[in-house]
């Protein structure tokens, strides 16, 4: 399971002033909900579900 790191400064994911972590990614429907854009560009694996910005791969975690 890939864990991504969102460092977008305006994103609230994670602790205040720190990057947040997520697995998976935002769906196109969620981006539309977030931004109002009916045809969003970035979405899917590795795109932050909180802010819709592409994130960096942090590490790969084994399923437990």
């Amino acid at each position, binding site marked *: 399971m890939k*864990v*991504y790191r969102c460092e977008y400064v305006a994103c*609230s*994911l*994670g*602790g*205040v*002033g*720190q*990057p*947040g*972590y*997520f*697995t*998976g*990614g*935002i*769906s196109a429907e*969620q981006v539309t*909900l977030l931004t109002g854009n009916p045809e969003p560009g970035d979405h899917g694996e590795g795109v*932050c*579900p*909180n802010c819709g910005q592409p994130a960096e791969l942090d590490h790969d975690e084994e399923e*437990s």
Partner: protein
Amino acid sequence: MAQMMPDEGLDIVLGQIPKDTAKYTSPLNLALFTSQTASTVITHAQTIANITETVYTNYARQSLAAATWGAVAERPTNLGRQSTYPQVTFPTCGATGATINGFYITNNGHTICLGQANFDDVTAVVLAQNDIIKVTPTWAYLH
């Protein structure tokens, strides 16, 4: 609300004071669990293996950096001392939700549970798509 610093977590604390045999590694992890109930946690002798971490879509545990814990202050009123971490936001729930019974803090490698707690309103949080859960952890030692 139930909370527990299990044996394995207290062993880490005692390993620093008074034994000076262990130094924990920052950051710790803040995780959400679906095991136990909204008002119960593991027993003292149980471990991280007895806790089921949530797997809702987009979930990942969040880091708790040593330097970010707030100033040590009184645990009101005169109960002890505490430090509060700034509010932590977990990822927005995607297609598959979950029922969250509380949070737990683990060591850097996520191999030891340092403490587990329900939410203070002892109510499970039922996460559906687009829901966001935010947690503000406090760590206290009582006199």
